[in-house]
């Protein structure tokens, strides 16, 4: 077996192992788990949307334990300040009694950061995440502080409480790799949840990775997956179809979309497609892999116009029509 084949096999093994460990705590959210892992190994961030009590925080904590990385949680509130996220300089007295500033890192200095109810914080606070999510470093007092790698932000949104919230701007939304909608568990899943969480015995999460740097190596394996030009063209077609001015745009896109997906959407499609291809046991990306990642990768990058919002049209419907028009 060649080296690359071994790496691929290792990737698949680690992925499934982490997935298995997470399934010990999370019940009935396989697609969410898979999406979060895909984002992790693709180097992206995830926006989770769901009502309270579905285990979003539990999911992130479990992921951190399984991947053996540092985890921090930030509860966004309207009075949260940017310094509460990135950290600040504080005056400290050394042993000799001299006073000076020392940087106190904020909760963002972790491998996996849970930004809970991110839409409750002010835009100023939200923008504090922009630099960190994109550049993987923060600047405080003119000093650049790099973040740990791997770095993953999982933000959550509560779709119920809209009063007193600050919807994420399009620039920040575009920085999320995936937007995953956490569904309410089924009755069967609720039985399992209750049995696991209301009994004395709690499942033990085993570290699937010994070294967090393995995640970075596995990300390289993902990027090495070859992609045929026709498959890449398919991804590009999907992104272009979200633009209302494009000749190939679907009727829904022409009618209800104000802005289509950016090139980051195409990047997300390609990286996710590569991971899905490896998980399927292939060394190449197929159009079906791209199509599988379309919904999660593009639903938050499409901005509806007023008519679309007034009509109650969702971006999921627009993407579904695009996929019907462009079958894999």
């Amino acid at each position, binding site marked *: 077996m060649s080296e690359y084949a071994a790496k691929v096999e290792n990737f698949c093994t680690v992925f499934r192992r982490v997935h298995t460990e997470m399934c010990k705590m999370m019940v009935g959210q396989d697609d969410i788990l898979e999406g979060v892992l895909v984002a992790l190994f693709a180097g992206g961030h995830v926006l989770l949307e769901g009502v309270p009590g579905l285990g979003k925080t539990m999911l992130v904590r479990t992921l951190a334990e399984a991947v053996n990385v540092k985890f921090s949680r930030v509860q966004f509130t309207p009075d949260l300040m940017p310094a509460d996220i990135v950290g600040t300089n504080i005056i400290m007295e050394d042993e000799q009694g001299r006073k000076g500033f020392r940087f106190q890192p904020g909760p963002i200095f972790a491998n996996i950061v849970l930004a809970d109810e991110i839409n409750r914080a002010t835009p100023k606070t939200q923008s504090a995440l922009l630099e960190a999510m994109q550049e993987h470093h923060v600047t405080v007092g003119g000093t650049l502080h790099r973040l740990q790698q791997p770095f993953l932000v999982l933000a959550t949104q509560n779709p119920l409480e809209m009063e007193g919230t600050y919807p994420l701007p399009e620039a920040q939304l575009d920085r999320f790799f995936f937007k995953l909608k956490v569904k309410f568990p089924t009755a069967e899943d609720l039985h399992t949840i209750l049995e696991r969480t209301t009994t004395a015995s709690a499942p033990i999460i085993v570290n699937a990775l010994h070294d967090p740097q393995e995640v970075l190596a596995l990300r390289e394996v993902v990027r090495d997956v070859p992609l045929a030009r026709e498959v890449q063209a398919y991804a590009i077609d999907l992104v272009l179809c979200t633009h209302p001015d494009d000749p190939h745009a679907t009727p829904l896109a022409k009618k209800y979309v104000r802005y289509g997906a950016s090139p980051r959407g195409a990047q997300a499609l390609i990286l996710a497609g590569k991971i899905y291809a490896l998980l399927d046991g292939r060394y*190449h990306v*197929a159009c079906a892999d791209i199509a599988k990642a379309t919904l999660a990768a593009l639903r938050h990058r499409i901005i509806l116009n007023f008519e679309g919002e007034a009509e109650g049209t969702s971006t999921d419907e627009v993407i579904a029509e695009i996929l019907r028009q462009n079958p894999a």
Partner: protein
Amino acid sequence: MRGVRRRIVAQTFLERLTFHLLAAGAGLVVLGAWRRLQGTGEPWDARLALAAAAAALVVAALATLRRRPTLGVVARWLDQAAGTRDRLLTALAFSTAAGEPRALAVQECTEFAARTDFRAQARLRVPARLPWLLVPALALALLQWETRMAVEARALQAAAARAAVEDSARQLEALARRIEPQGAATDAGELKKMAEELRRRAERLRAETSSAEDAQKAALREISELEQLVREMQKQPSASREMQELAQALGQTEKTQAAAEALRGGDLAKAAEELEKSLREMAKHKDERTPEAVKQALEQALKHLADQRRLSEQMQQLRQQMQQGGAASQTMKQLAEALRKMGGGKTQDAPPSPGGRPMTEQEMKALLAALQNMKNGEGGGQQPQTGRDQGRGLATMESFAPADGSQPGQPGDRQLPAGNPGSEKDQGTTESPLGEERDPAGKKARAQQLAGRLGEGETLQQFLPSAGDASRAGRRYQELYEAMAPAAQEAVLQENIPLGSRFFIKRYFEAIRPRE
């Protein structure tokens, strides 16, 4: 994949060929229908069909070759059809690429392709449009069959027409053969002309008659035209014609040559002088042979003129019998008999007329007038009936005289209008404005003949059966006048009538006023 591409190309060619054959078939059907409507022979033939099929073949081949799919298109098509997850596409894309991941990808794809049977996807199938080729084929077959039926029907029709007119045409030709030698023997130009005309008419009858229904019409038409010809011949020989006959008769003797020359030159006074001169000389020399010879020549000339007139009478009788529905062959036989008799020198009377006696010139003219009326469609087939006084050639009209013997138009007669507008006699015939249905003459009416006499001029008779009823007023004129007078007076007062016109307007209203 190259093998699959060949199959795809073949399949595409079959699909395109079917489509173009359908289009060619549709074009053939349209062309065939147009030709059928124009009547320009067969709607289609084997050569045309082969040419259309060949054109479809060439076009389909060219279109297929022009749009021959690339290996990439074939790979994508095959991936979608076989569900190979773009393995063929990837293998084709990275077949020449370097790098371990790509090599692994190509290897995996190749192994997968080797394990997969693609023949099911690349199988040649019958084009879905193929059964539709039956439609233009059936349409063309129907067109061909219908055209053949129409041609056969036309042939039958033409044969029936020819058979219908053959008898008439043969009779005409027989007539021509008979009168030709007689015309040559007697040097009668009109007979020769008539013979030639008969022969020409027979040929035309055969050539132009296309249906049995038209046979009788065509024969009638020819007879009419012959009648017209004879009518021209029947015309009173013009003075010039008589002069020529007279000059020809006088020219046969030496003593009267000068008079003949003068007649030919149109100098009647000189011809009379020469003739008197010749008579004096003959009396002086006691020459009895020359007058006798001149007499015989004159008799011959008169007979010639009489023969022409009789021929005209025969042609008119022939036409009359044709209009009455008689067989053309029968009338032809009668004409042949008459001509034969004329050609044999027997001056017999013409065949008896329907009245049992020879027809005079006036009767002939009356008959011609009646035929004209029949031509115009007024009482077709009707004949003016002979009156009581047959010697005068009467024409009768039915009158609406009442049975009580009172003459129409007498005072007090409420049934008939007096003819004078405004007269108190025009009381109208009904109490109601809408009129009442009534028998105009009553049950006691009887037909009454009116005596009359035909003059020298032409006579035209018309039968108007509905003239009487339509002329009656449905309302009393007095009442109508009294009802409309105020409106008329008001209109006159309101209108700005010029001074010069007022007199005429006054006169008009005085004229239409009911008289006391």
